[in-house]
């Protein structure tokens, strides 16, 4: 399949759904959270996106304990992402929906894609999102008794509490600039 054919398929797909974006070769389809399962089923059955690639979430928050905050002000929410792919031509689409932080629930995709089982368990323990209809929504990686949801932006890393980011090593000047500044001092 050449690039133009593949583009036309994605353009066609973009015209079907109300809100899409296709920046950096990444087609995103934005849906309301009550259409979540319905859209995934439609993509699987009508458009050939039969391959379940991954499911995860993003914590959109203005106050972050680690890293950089978003550039522009965002409404605090969880964005759920689910990547589906077509095995005949390698196209992929990322489904995206937003759910409120006060009520982080969404319907599980397990009926459509059984592979979403572990991905949803991971999102559950890392973000605290509950998936309605999941048969075994328990921790996947973290040990029993672990408290907190580590991938939340409010969750602090202990090492960064001790040494704030960026650490001193991170902003160390390049060796050449060191030498030049020293030689300037000598002058």
């Amino acid at each position, binding site marked *: 399949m050449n690039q133009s054919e593949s583009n036309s398929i994605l353009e066609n797909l973009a015209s079907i759904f109300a809100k899409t974006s296709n920046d950096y070769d990444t087609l995103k389809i934005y849906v309301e959270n009550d259409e979540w399962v319905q859209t995934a089923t439609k993509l699987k059955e009508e458009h050939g996106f*039969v391959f379940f690639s991954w499911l995860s979430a*993003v914590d959109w928050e203005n106050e972050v304990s680690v890293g950089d905050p*978003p550039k522009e002000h965002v409404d605090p929410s969880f964005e759920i992402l689910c990547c589906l792919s077509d095995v005949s031509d390698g196209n992929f689409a990322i489904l995206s929906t937003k759910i409120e932080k006060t009520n982080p629930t969404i319907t599980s995709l397990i009926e459509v894609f059984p592979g979403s089982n572990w991905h949803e368990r991971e999102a559950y323990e890392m973000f605290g999102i509950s998936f309605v209809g999941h048969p075994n929504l328990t921790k996947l990686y*973290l040990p029993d008794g672990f408290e907190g949801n580590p991938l939340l932006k409010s969750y602090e890393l202990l090492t960064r509490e001790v040494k704030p980011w960026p650490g001193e090593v991170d902003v160390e000047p390049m060796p050449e600039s060191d030498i030049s500044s020293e030689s300037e001092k000598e002058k």
Partner: protein
Amino acid sequence: MTTTIDPENLPFVSETSVSVEIETEGMILNIGPQHPSTHGVLRLVAKVDGEKISNVEPVLGYMHRGYEKLAEVRTYPQITTLVNRIDWVSGFCNEIPFIAATEKLMEVEVPERAKYIRLMLTEMARIASHFVFNGAYPLEIGALTPLFYAMEDRERVLDLIESVTGGRFHPNFNRIGGVKPAAGAGPATKKDIQDLPAGFYKETRDAMETILLACDKFEDLVGGNEVFVARTKGVGVLPPEVATAYGVSGPILRASGIKFDLRTTTDYLPYKDFDYDIPIGENGDCFDRWFVRLQEIRESAKIVLQAIDSIPSGPLQAKVPKIIKVPAGECYVRAENPKGEMGYHLISEGGLGPYRLKIRTASFSNISVLPWILEGVLIPDLLAIMGSFDFVLGDVDR
């Protein structure tokens, strides 16, 4: 004179011991986390009835290092070091999609020569990874000899990777915008930039030709072994529709008959310049999974041979700022790794590090199908099936 045995009237067998209806009690068998056939620290909790498995629940997390969180507190160049350690059998391949995602957001055009070097090393890492499988898999089934041959041939590839990158397992060789100047290739002054080490092309050609011969040897030694065939043919059949619904990718998916190879459908590396086949299986059983990987070694060796003939000259690095800041944006870049689809969903807010980095690893999705495929199989087949999935726990737990 021939004697016939009347089963009704055997003098030495008591009545009860010939009864085939033995009442067995279900029990829970714990396999791992420290078990030689689990490739690391995977624990399986199996409900067994006699030798038959009725239900398996994999328990993960013994290797969880939290790379997605760690990536949020590191700069982009630092993350390359982290992602090297996801699938340590083919460390080099893990860097490629991350670097490609960063370059996509920065809109950096990588020099052709750097792309070719990346491609060659990726294919070498694939060969090394598949050799580990080719040695370890017969071992799990009971054949010890192939391991020694496999390790010898893998060493040829690792030596080549080491001669270029300086590292055997964790090269950390890719830079945003190109590759690092090669190790041991002369001075690093700007006039005389380091490139591939002296004699690299000849050594690569020799090694790849030896590897092509080694593949024939493996086909006879392993594929011609009746015990191996009996243990793997028709065992652990994975239908294509189940494989896709679980997100099983790579050689396992292709063994089930689906021709899905991201090398041909995406442009993260210039694979379109090369002539190679995508081997697929027919039955989706353990034998096909072994056979597809063996064929892939051949194809990868052919790609490397073509690459050393056609590698363009030119710079190794595009011009990038000294302090890497990635413009705000979001993209998903995926690559065909030896284990399957590996991808990075990178969300940048314009800072020194990503806002969120979702790491999609192949083995995690691949082994999520284990509860489905292990239902109703016998315990000896459990080892044959798990071995044929060729997973690495670092790739499962991240």
